[in-house]
């Protein structure tokens, strides 16, 4: 399939613009998945997918035939998603109080009518996790998602984030440490 990707890239570069559609069709699901995991928002992920393929097309001359197109576009998507969450951070209005008090790291448990204890605990974990993820830097968050959820190696993470492998490794460490600290309240009162 990847060999076929190279042929398509050559066709696009030779002037067959519509051939690029085949690459978009082939890789859009993967790109959407990672975009959604990084941005955490469906609409943002769709935007990232479009932006990534657009950038990919514009930079296609720089695509090296020894790379795989899927890996290459995946990296572009990670970058676009990272830009997106940075942009959203600027725009976001930080809301505290009703749902979560970040200073005390206490999460309000869902309404008691929600059901069995287990469901509550599961929701509490999810809520803590969501909140903890918000407190990671964009790089830590992305590095952790790529490592933990996308099963990417440190080398791949470093390449996608355009940072040194050791910096990628440290970003994952910091993310894990912060997330574990956030989950600690559950350990005290399981």
């Amino acid at each position, binding site marked *: 399939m990847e060999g076929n990707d190279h042929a398509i890239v050559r066709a696009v570069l030779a*002037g067959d*613009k519509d051939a690029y559609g085949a690459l978009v069709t082939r890789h859009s699901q993967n790109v959407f998945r990672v975009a959604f995991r990084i941005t955490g928002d469906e609409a943002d992920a769709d935007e990232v997918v*479009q932006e990534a393929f657009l950038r990919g097309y514009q930079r296609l001359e720089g695509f090296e035939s020894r790379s795989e197109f899927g890996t290459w576009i995946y990296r572009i998507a990670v970058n676009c998603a990272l830009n997106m969450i940075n942009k959203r951070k600027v725009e976001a209005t930080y809301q505290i109080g009703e749902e979560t008090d970040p200073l005390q790291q206490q999460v309000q448990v869902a309404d008691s009518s929600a059901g069995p204890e287990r469901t509550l605990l599961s929701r509490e974990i999810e809520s803590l996790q969501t909140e903890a993820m918000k407190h990671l830097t964009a790089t830590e968050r992305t590095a952790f998602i790529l490592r933990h959820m996308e099963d990417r190696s*440190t080398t791949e993470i470093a390449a996608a984030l355009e940072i040194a492998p050791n910096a990628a490794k440290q970003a994952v460490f910091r993310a*894990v440490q912060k997330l574990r600290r956030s*989950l600690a309240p559950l350990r005290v009162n399981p």
Partner: protein
Amino acid sequence: MKHLNEEELIDYYYGESSSPAAIGDHLRECGECSESYVALERDLAEIKPLPVPQRDAAYGAQVWDAIRSSVAVKEAPQKKLRFGWLSLHPMGSLAAVAIACLLIAAAFFVGRQWEHRGAPPVAVNDGGGEQGRERVVLLVLGDHLDRSERLLVELKHAAPSTEAPLQAEARDLLSANRLYRESVKQAGDPVLAAALDHLGRVLTEVANEPAGLSQARLDELQKEMNTDGLLFEVRVLRSRVQEDVEPKSGTSPVTKGVSI
């Protein structure tokens, strides 16, 4: 016995330890480390990815449909007439008219936000013909490049700051830049399009910097985005645009450049 630290355990958990066998042996022998590792496993196992919404088989085609009109056919670089993209063919193709309309709309947009200097651009359109339209386009584009140049110079000399005057200006320029970039791309001026593309990326970075611009971030921007190179490009392009305005105007243009 030397205990394993958290980093070593995390590395081991993700299968990236440089000596997995030794760590495995240690975990079997050392109760304390084994306990730490079990706690780490339990914590990480609880962090599950959000379920990813499904996208159907037509998703790829939809994405392609959405971006198809924004991309130009790739072709070997051809020699183009200088500013050939601006010369409206006497027969007037639909594309050329559309671009002219788009840029004129941009002129009003920029004019609304930018101080009036000298005669307003629309005033030169008194001929009502293509020459007038061209001149409006050139003036507006010149103005945009002029503002961009000033921002890049300020960026070059900016002191670290948590305030964001540069960011506000960058945001302002960004929307106009997108409009110009798309028009220029469709018109097929690769040099100008590439410069506006580069400018757009720098503006995006500056506009989206969340906590002001630290010295480190300024250095990084200058290094990674080659802002000095971009400044040079913008200057060259501004001169090109200005030269194109001059013969048509018959008056000496207002010099808006800034020196470093």
